[in-house]
């Protein structure tokens, strides 16, 4: 009897188990305007407000990743920062710019988390604490990015090309907050051998990454191994949001686009050529 029950449980679990798992099904692909959206709820729900909806695309067209993630110390994972209204009001995190005083593109950047609603009668909090609400935004994705060079997946924008061609000019220094730095001594590109036979090798460009990230964003928090080859990781780790996946699952071009990284044709009959 017990054996039958045990086998029944196994049978039922097999049938239903994968329904709860992540593999075997196609994940919903967010629309270009929705890619990079994060919902921040460090303290919002506790304060009785809707969680904050932050779309990366607009900010990434104005600032490098480093300004927010290193100079302003925003975490790379949702929920890891712990931003509160008090922090913002004191000029930290969002409040470093969203203080009603900083000028940007000829306008004052609206104040986040201030004590009073603005004079025009709008509900100030809703502008960011907008999950589940219809909030009119200042910038519409389609209009704003209409002329940007396009790529597939993610936001559908080639952000790198957009900067090269002058459509965007991300700022790397926030006055009064950023540590003044000299320009970077460039690290060389190097090859990462693909483990799967037949997959093209990856050419990793340090330059492309450091232009927007500096060094501290990745080292050592995301990539702790100091010598190439010491940290072993696989695509499974990356799909789960570790290593390259820290950015390339949610904000940077998604992992669905294999050939953005796997670019080097496989060397036939020879070693995988390194640097």
């Amino acid at each position, binding site marked *: 009897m017990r054996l039958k029950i045990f086998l029944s449980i196994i049978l039922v679990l097999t049938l239903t188990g994968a329904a709860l798992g992540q593999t075997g099904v*196609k994940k919903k692909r967010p629309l270009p305007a929705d890619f990079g959206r994060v919902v921040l709820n460090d303290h919002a729900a506790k304060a009785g407000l809707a969680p904050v909806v932050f779309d990366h695309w607009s900010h990434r067209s104005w600032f490098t990743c480093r300004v927010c993630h290193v100079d302003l110390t925003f975490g790379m994972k949702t929920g890891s920062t712990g931003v509160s209204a008090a922090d913002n009001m004191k000029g930290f995190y969002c409040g470093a710019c969203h203080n009603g005083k900083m000028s940007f593109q000829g306008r004052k950047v609206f104040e986040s988390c201030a004590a009073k609603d603005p004079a025009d009668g709008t509900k100030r909090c809703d502008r960011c604490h907008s999950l589940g609400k219809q909030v009119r935004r200042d910038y519409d994705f389609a209009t704003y990015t209409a002329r940007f060079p396009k790529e597939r997946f993610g936001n559908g924008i080639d952000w790198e090309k957009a900067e090269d061609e002058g459509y965007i000019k991300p700022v790397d220094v926030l006055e009064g907050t950023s540590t003044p730095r000299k320009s970077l001594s460039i690290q060389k590109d190097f090859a990462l051998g693909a483990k799967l036979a037949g997959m093209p090798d990856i050419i990793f460009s340090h330059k492309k990454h450091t232009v927007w990230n500096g060094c501290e964003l990745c080292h050592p928090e995301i990539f702790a191994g100091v010598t190439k080859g010491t940290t072993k990781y696989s695509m499974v780790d990356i799909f789960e949001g570790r290593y390259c996946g820290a950015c390339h699952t949610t904000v940077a071009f998604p992992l669905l686009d294999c050939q953005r990284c796997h670019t080097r044709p496989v060397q036939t009959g020879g070693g995988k050529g390194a640097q």
Partner: protein
Amino acid sequence: MNSCAKPRKRSDAMRRSVLYWIGALCLCLSLTAGAEGKNLPPPQDYGVTIMGAPGEQRVLPAVRFDHWLHRAFYTCRLCHVDLGFAMTRNGTGVKADMNAQGLYCGACHDGQRVHGNRAIFAACRTSIRPEAAAECNRCHSVGIPVKRMYDYDSFTRKLPKQKTGLVDWEKAEEQGFIRPSDILRGVSVVRPRMIPQGDFIINSRGLWMTDIIFSHKKHADWNGCEVCHPDIFPSVKKGTVRYSMFQIAEGEYCGLCHDRVAFPLVECQKCHVKSTPHPGKGVEGAASRP
């Protein structure tokens, strides 16, 4: 095969468990086999997708999308990768304004893109004259008899068929009846072709079934890499992700396509081949049985 008698007398645990597993086999076979395609819908209804959540409040009837016509013209990759269509019902969340913007259906159905010698009709224009509202029924046709431009029987009359009566799309392409297009101008981003992996053996778990030879080439021709990887099959190392026929029958892994749009699971021998060749002769992996 549906009545599997249970023992009247409780005897030893071994006999019970054997009979229990016979019961499991009955379940498996009834899920996958039926009797010679008895459970399959008529060929013109196979692969039909109703777009929209069941029971959802609607202004127009739900959209009935027949896969058979589009798959004759386009690869799976074009719609499911380049256009971003999901692979489960209501997974995409297409709305009229998205179509009007040129996303999803609207990428082709814009009134301008030419197919053959005609412009493809526009889907979901933002403003429709009230008298032309019936144009919506061209797609929003669940529950409404609609005359279609292409009739299934006449379109597929000459196409090679499988045992089940469904079109054999692979043969249809081999024999030149169809030439699915893989690129949508203005939408597709063309990448250098990647060499698909070689065929390999997937060992069958059930002792009563032969092993499977999986052909990457056949799948990659229509799907590219991105339809399956990494969402459906994230494993880069064969054997990392384990799944069974139960999950496939539930519409996961292989079952995401097969039994819905691609050839149904009732055709066991299309995958479970009669005998697997020795490894090294064009396939990787060890046969579980000689």
